[in-house]
Structures are given as C-alpha cells and as structure tokens.
C-alpha cells in the first residue's frame, strides 16, 4: 500500500517536472488549484453553511439574543424535567433513596415518594483535587445522574446475639406459623380482649425483671467521620458539624431513655482508622493518587446527632439523587 502510494507520488512528480520543462504544466496546476480554492470558499461562505454550523445560533427572523435566552431557558427546563423523571422513577421503584437538595440544604431519605426523614445540612460542598492527578483530561462528572449502591465506609456492623434457650420440658405443639429455616419471626396472633379476657386483662400483670439491653449508641458507635460510597464513583464525606437543633425535633420522651440510663452520658465514637489505613491514606495523598474508583467527592457537614442517626439507620444499597433546581420563571 505504502509502496503504491510512493509510486503514484513519484509519477505525479515526474509528470509535473516534465510539464514544467515546457513551462505550461505549472500554469495549469496553478489554475486548477485556484479554481479548487474558489469553489471551496464558495461552499463555506454559502448562507446555508453559515446557518447550519453554530450551536445555539439564532434562526432566521429573530434576534440572536432572544433566541439564545430561549434556548437556555429550554435547556434549563429540560434538565429540570429530567430530574423530575428520575424522581418519579425512584418513587415507582422499590428501593430507599436519598434526595439531596443543595438549595434547601436538606438531605431527605425517601421511599416510594414518601419523605421519611429530613436531615438538615449545614454545608454541602463539592471537592476538587488541589493538584492534577493522573494523565490526560478528566471528563466532567454529571452530578445530576442517579447514584446507586450506596454503602457506608467504614461499614456498620449489625449486632446479632444468639439467644441460648433452656431445654424444652414438653413436646412441641402446633406450629403457629413458624416454618423450618424461617427468618423473621412471626409474632403469633392477636385478639381483641374478650369478655372473659377483660376480667383477666383488667389487672395489668406485674412487669418482671428483665435484663436491660444496650442502647443503639452503645451497639453502634459512630466514627467521627465516615463516607457513603456509590458504585458509580461518588463519595460523600459526612462530617460532624456544630450541634444545633436537628431537622426533626428530638422526642420529648428522651427523658425515658435517660431514666433507663441513670444520668445522661456521652457515648464514645467508634475507633478511628487503623495506623495502616492512615499511612495508606497519607501515601495516596502524597503521591496524588485518587482513591480507587472515585470520580467525584462531596462533603456534607451535619449536626452530630443527625450524623449519628444517619449512620445507624442508613438502608443498604441506598440510591442518591441530587435535585436540579427549578428554573426561574
């Protein structure tokens, strides 16, 4: 192939040289080139070409400024519609999701379109690496995309104790709904108090002494700082901020919890990262390496109580949508 091309070029060169000897070849080549240039310029300069090229340019019959503004408005409405479509899809689905509203500074846990808990955000920030990392341009991340598979880092360890019962004294009766290998225990059946039952139910039985189990604060200590990582490469860094009144008012019955504890006390946070994890993080920073798979990083500063509750109760594989603001009217 290359040889053939060189042969062709060689022939053309010999032809030009031969023609130029007579003095007429060069003039002919020049004329052909001039005609070609004029034709090309004509094509570029045609009204149709001018109209088709630029994006967002004004169509004929309108001022350029109005049409650009309309195009921009339309694009903003289109983006808002896309966000609404995603919200509707999530509301029709069967998964818990977080809706982050940067304008209202609220992070809402939702399920099937129903808001479950609002968490007020003191600061929501987008992190950009101070120094360029890696080779080549990083493609911009569309924050308005749907982020899935959210997991806690460090993970929350679900505490499960095994109850060791004393041996049964009698033969087993009817199954009452329990099956071999069943998971969640059915609670039995419930009856409304009958006439006979009323006589017995009239006096409340005496509560017996039971072992007092641990509080959630003791079962699930929360790290001072934790992350929620999504499968598509978004990391949310949750940081405890100043203690202010939480978005949802604390229940007045907190007094009952204090009574169970005795005096109110502060529960220690979970142990921080190990020395090895700290060294690995330091080495990553010093060598300007990105955490594996991370494409974007957000930082949310939240009231400490809300941050703790979010850590303890975040459903597994939660989704996240960052709400696009409604376009101005």
């Amino acid at each position: 192939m290359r040889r053939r091309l060189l042969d062709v070029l060689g022939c053309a060169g010999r032809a030009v040289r031969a023609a130029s000897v007579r003095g007429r070849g060069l003039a002919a080549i020049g004329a052909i080139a001039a005609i070609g240039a004029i034709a090309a310029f004509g094509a570029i300069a045609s009204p149709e070409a001018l109209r088709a090229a630029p994006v967002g340019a004004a169509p004929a019959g309108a001022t350029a400024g109005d049409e650009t503004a309309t195009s921009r408005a339309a694009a903003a409405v289109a983006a808002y519609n896309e966000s609404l479509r995603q919200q509707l899809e999530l509301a029709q689905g069967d998964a818990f999701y977080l809706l982050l509203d940067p304008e209202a500074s609220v992070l809402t846990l939702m399920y099937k379109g129903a808001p479950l808990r609002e968490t007020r955000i003191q600061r929501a920030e987008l992190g950009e690496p101070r120094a360029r990392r890696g080779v080549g341009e990083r493609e911009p991340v569309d924050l308005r995309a749907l982020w899935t598979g959210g997991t806690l880092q460090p993970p929350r360890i679900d505490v499960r104790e095994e109850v060791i019962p004393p041996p049964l004294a009698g033969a087993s009766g009817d199954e009452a709904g329990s099956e071999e290998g069943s998971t969640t225990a059915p609670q039995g059946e419930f009856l409304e108090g009958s006439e006979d039952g009323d006589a017995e139910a009239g006096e409340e039985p005496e509560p017996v002494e039971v072992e007092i189990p641990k509080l959630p604060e003791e079962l699930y200590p929360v790290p001072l700082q934790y992350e929620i990582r999504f499968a598509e490469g978004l990391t949310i860094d949750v940081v405890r901020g100043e203690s202010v009144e939480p978005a949802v008012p604390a229940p007045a019955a907190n007094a009952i919890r204090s009574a169970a504890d005795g005096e109110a006390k502060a529960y220690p946070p979970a142990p921080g990262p190990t020395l090895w994890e700290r060294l690995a993080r330091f080495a990553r920073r010093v060598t300007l390496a990105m955490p594996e798979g991370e494409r974007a990083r957000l930082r949310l500063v939240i009231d400490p109580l809300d941050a703790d509750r979010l850590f303890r109760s975040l459903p597994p594989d939660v989704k996240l949508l960052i709400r696009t603001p409604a376009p101005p009217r």
Partner: protein
Amino acid sequence: MEVTTQPSIDPLARAAFATDRTAPAARRLRQPSFPVALAAMLAVGLLVLPVTLVANWAGGYRYRPLAEAIALRAPAAATDGVTPAGPRELKKLEAETQKLLTALDRRTPRAPYVVVDRTNNLLYLRKPSEVMLAAVCSAGSGSVLKDPAGNRTWVFDTPRGQFKVISILEKPAWRKPDWAFIEEGEPIPKNPADRIEYGMLGEYGLYFGDGFLIHGTLYERLLGRNVTHGCIRLGKQDLREVVKATRLGTQIYIF
C-alpha cells in the same frame, strides 16, 4: 661491575606498608564523626519534610459550595450540544414539567402516615411537610433463637419496607407462638387457650400484617432500646396519639 640492588622488601610487607599509609583517610570517609552524621540527617529531614507537607496538601481537596458548583455548570450545559429551541418548544417542555409534577404529587401520601426508624428506635407520625409527633419506641432486637429440639431458627427483626394498618385492636391479647415458650424454657402448651396472654400489649394494637403490631408495653423504661421480637412498642401517651391520628389503611414505613 657494580650491582645495584633494590632493598629487599617482602611484597606482603610492601602492601601492608601501602595500606597503612592510606588507612587513616579511608577510615575517616567510612566512619564520619557523629556531628557530621547528625548534620547530614537534619539536612535531609529539612529538605524532605516540606516537600512531603506540600505534597500532602496538594493531595487534598479544595471545597466549594455545591449549589454554586451546580449553578456554574448549568449555563455551560445549557448551550453545550443543545439544539436551538423556540418559544413553542419551551412551552412543550413546561407542559411536560406540569405533568411530571402532578405524577409525583400523586405518589406522595396526603394523609398522615407512620415512619419507624428501627435502629434508632424512633417513631414519627407525620405528613410530607410536617412532623406531628416524634416518639421513642422499641423495635426488634435482631437476636437469633435456634430451637434446640429441631431445625427451626427465628430472627427477631422488625421488617423494613412499606405496610399499612390492617386492623386496630383495643386491649389486644397475645396468642403466643412456639418461640415464646422455647425462649423461656417452658413447655409448649397443647391447649390453645393456654397460649393466650392478656394485658401485656397495652391499650391498643395497630396490626400491619405478617404477625407484626404497634402496641403498648409494661416496660416503658426499656423504650429506646432494641428489645422486642419484631413488634414495635410505644409509650401509653404516644400510642393514644398515634391511634387517634390513624385509621385502617394508614401507611407505615419502616427503615
């Protein structure tokens, strides 16, 4: 004939003599003095430390407000690869916005509903934009009970998801299942009437399916702790308020 002889020096002796001459300098190079070594280490440290600190700083992140970051990107996105649109297209898009908002609104519950945070043991009675009641409750302990006599295993979790109130009971009585006896080491009664326990579940019970109930308790001091076998316990006053605001079909969300 004059014979000149070189002094007879043994080659080994010559080598030793040569070594001896250069030895003090070589020893000085191989074994620097302590102050020199210390100065060298300090110099290296002073050079490496700022470089490391700068690199550590450079490896961090610069943060700016998210709302501002999104707003900055929006105008670029608005004209980036977007076809020109006229007033007609804009009106179409706005009409679609209204349709989507209406569809979303239909998905949002209008009547009060119950939300239970089973890990933090909190119960909310709320509407989409208002929390009417926040109460401490007790949810499932998550513990596991294995039947020593058979292959049955029970996990005492409060289920997660969306439910609705199927029935509202007054002074509910409890017909205990097998695990309630196995857990206590009691024989399982053959007579069904012996399974029924009265007065343990408070004034009301909101039944929401699969054998789960929101009910009262004798053990109000244990509220706030994961102590139940899956049901949700409330204090007396809070239970009254919840029952007053709910009815059959009221949605219950548990996470």
